[in-house]
């Protein structure tokens, strides 16, 4: 059974707590992404699973067995390094074959495995070259190949796509996803690129300052962020996070198939009436909150409405099929994504409507209010 379990895993470098007692379970065949900004502890966590760092406290189980005291070799894990770590003096073929020597296979079996992997990753053309002669994308594939050529307990990827350019990244994302699906082993991927995480992961663990802020499926992370940090981190362009004050909430009703309640908020100079999660009702009036709405959750309307605010266009950023508008109203800033055919002029005053049911409300402790 290839599973990974982390219980109370902690790592301190002197006074610095890099990882603070995290719990995580990765099921067999599941791909979990550790996502977060630099310094959040994701790479340290990965290295602890691999055995390259010694944990300060906590337990690591791979395949059900406690591996805290085992060396990386004994844990039988495969890892793809951020810098690929290809053996520079060996050919690609020898690089791919390297991990198999420990299994004491005969030359024929080794060759068969190497061929299988190189066919899978389209490396046949470069088998006899050295890493120094390869392109960036090829190097990355060799690094992945070296990991999948064997039969380890689990796979660990450290920022696998960070060194590739945008186009290559797209290619490799889908390729890796395909490969991983075929393997059916617990996999942990560390990345700071949310697109990577959203595409490749079965579950995403968003980390900040050594703590897992939220661990959920990509859809849930996107649609139901647990707190302000996750909401602001996931999704491009970034979610609008607007400081507001709750004026009052009305009773619940069913709108658009969901139970919502209607609440009024004071934002800046204006007020809006929005359909929000019923949990908002628990807050006392005049509570400070933060409203979160994604740029695509706003729309431009001709006339002011109860659930719209006015603002002035400050910057227009064409994004190809869509356009990103930056708007300003007093000290509030908004971002809205509109179709590229929409007419917009700098300095123009427009009305922004909050699309129904798309607003998240975060309380003063940054947690999303949800029932």
């Amino acid at each position, binding site marked *: 059974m290839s599973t990974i379990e982390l219980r109370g895993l902690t790592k301190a470098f002197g006074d610095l707590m890099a990882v603070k007692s995290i719990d995580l379970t990765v099921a067999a065949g599941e791909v979990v992404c550790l996502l977060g900004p630099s310094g959040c502890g994701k790479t340290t966590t990965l290295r602890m699973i*691999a055995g390259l760092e010694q944990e300060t406290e906590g337990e690591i189980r791979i395949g059900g067995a406690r591996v805290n005291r085992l060396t990386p*070799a004994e844990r*039988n*894990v495969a890892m793809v390094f951020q*810098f690929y*770590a290809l053996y520079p*003096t060996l050919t690609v073929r020898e690089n791919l074959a390297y*991990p198999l020597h420990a299994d004491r296979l005969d030359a024929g079996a080794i060759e068969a495995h190497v061929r299988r992997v190189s066919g899978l990753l389209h490396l046949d053309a470069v088998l006899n070259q050295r890493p120094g002669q390869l392109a960036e994308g090829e190097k990355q594939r060799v690094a992945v190949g070296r990991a999948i050529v064997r039969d380890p307990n689990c796979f660990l990827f450290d920022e696998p796509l960070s060194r590739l350019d945008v186009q290559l990244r797209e290619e490799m994302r889908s390729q890796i996803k395909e490969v991983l699906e075929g393997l059916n082993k617990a996999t942990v991927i560390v990345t700071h690129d949310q697109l990577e995480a959203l595409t490749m992961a079965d579950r995403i663990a968003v980390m900040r300052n050594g703590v897992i802020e939220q661990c959920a499926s990509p859809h849930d992370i996107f649609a139901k962020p647990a707190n302000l940090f996750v909401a602001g981190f996931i999704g491009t362009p970034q979610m609008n996070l607007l400081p507001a004050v709750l004026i009052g909430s009305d009773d619940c009703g069913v709108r658009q198939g969901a139970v919502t309640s209607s609440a009024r908020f004071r934002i800046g100079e204006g007020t809006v009436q929005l359909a929000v999660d019923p949990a908002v009702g628990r807050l006392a009036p005049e509570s400070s909150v933060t409203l979160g709405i994604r740029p695509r959750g706003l729309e431009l309307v001709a006339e002011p409405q109860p659930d719209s605010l006015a603002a002035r266009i400050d910057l227009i950023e064409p994004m190809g099929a869509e356009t990103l508008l930056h708007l300003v109203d007093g000290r509030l800033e908004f971002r809205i994504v509109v179709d590229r055919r929409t007419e917009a002029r700098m300095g123009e005053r427009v009305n922004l409507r909050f699309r129904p049911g798309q607003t998240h409300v975060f309380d003063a402790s940054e947690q999303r209010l949800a029932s």
Partner: protein
Amino acid sequence: MAVTASGVRTRGGFLALSWSNWPLALVAALIVIVLAIWLLPGSVAFWISLAAAALVAFSAVAFAYGRRNNGALLVAPAVALLVVMNIFPLLWSLGLSFFRYKANSIQPPVWLGINNFATVLNNADVWDRLRTTGLIMILTVSCQLIVGFLLALLFEKQFRGRRVLLMLVLTPMMLSYVAVGAFFRYYYEPTFGLLSQFIRMFTGEHFLLLNTPWGARAGIVFADAWMWSPFVMLLVLAGLVSVPSYLYEAAEIDRASWWRKFRTITFPYIRGLLLLALLFRTIEAFKLFDVVFLLNEGGPGTSNETIALYIYRQSFQYNKTSYSTALAYIMLFVVVVLTNLYLYAVNRRAREVV
């Protein structure tokens, strides 16, 4: 500022009479020097030769400068000094080696052509010394490589006090040859030397090291290897330390054995440096003089007289100046070949640094 690459051929070919035709100047200088030594009294010959060398230097600079090459100005002082201190004496020596010249006699030099070289190469003594030198060379360089490598392994990783201990191991390199020669003779001394006393604890007898050819050889090799193994250590250490740690981590994950890790990761990084060490120390061992002389004067007798020591004796004790100069030139030739190899290795190393 354009950088122009200048070729060796001067305009107008080899015989063109211009200031920047330095190949012509070089050949002319050589001829003038030889003639001067032959025909003119010593002092005058010297000044004429110096003038000839200065001409060569000047034309070389003019050659570079003539192409409006700023680099020449930057390079000129260094080149000038090197020419005066090295090239000129070399030319002088070369000129001298074609004559029979004794430094202490007032007889004018006698032209011998290549006779000197022939005499040298036919002399059994010379070959004997070369054999001795070769033997000592092989022994001491092998020891240095092995010990240096082991020491490097010792200091590869970080531990408390590494800096201080490294310093301790480096001190042998910094001792003066005089001190090393004298003190190792002291250590090897049969009555009160440490080595003899140590062995006397087991055998009860005085131990004489330096009175047999092989014993003296061992003494020389030990002292020289002890002095210079730290140098090899530094080179190998530089290589060991330059290996990126993620390669080792990857090998750990790949469950490679210790030997595999060494063979595929460590060794390629130090291979180039070991070669550098090998060549550098070989060249130095070939020139070995100080330790041999100060330890036992190449004894017993002349059994351990290295080629450098032999030359030294021939020219300063027996005053066979030009004979020894000829031999020295042959030695130089060998060193040039070795240096060529060294240079090749350095270039390859610079290119292959992974």
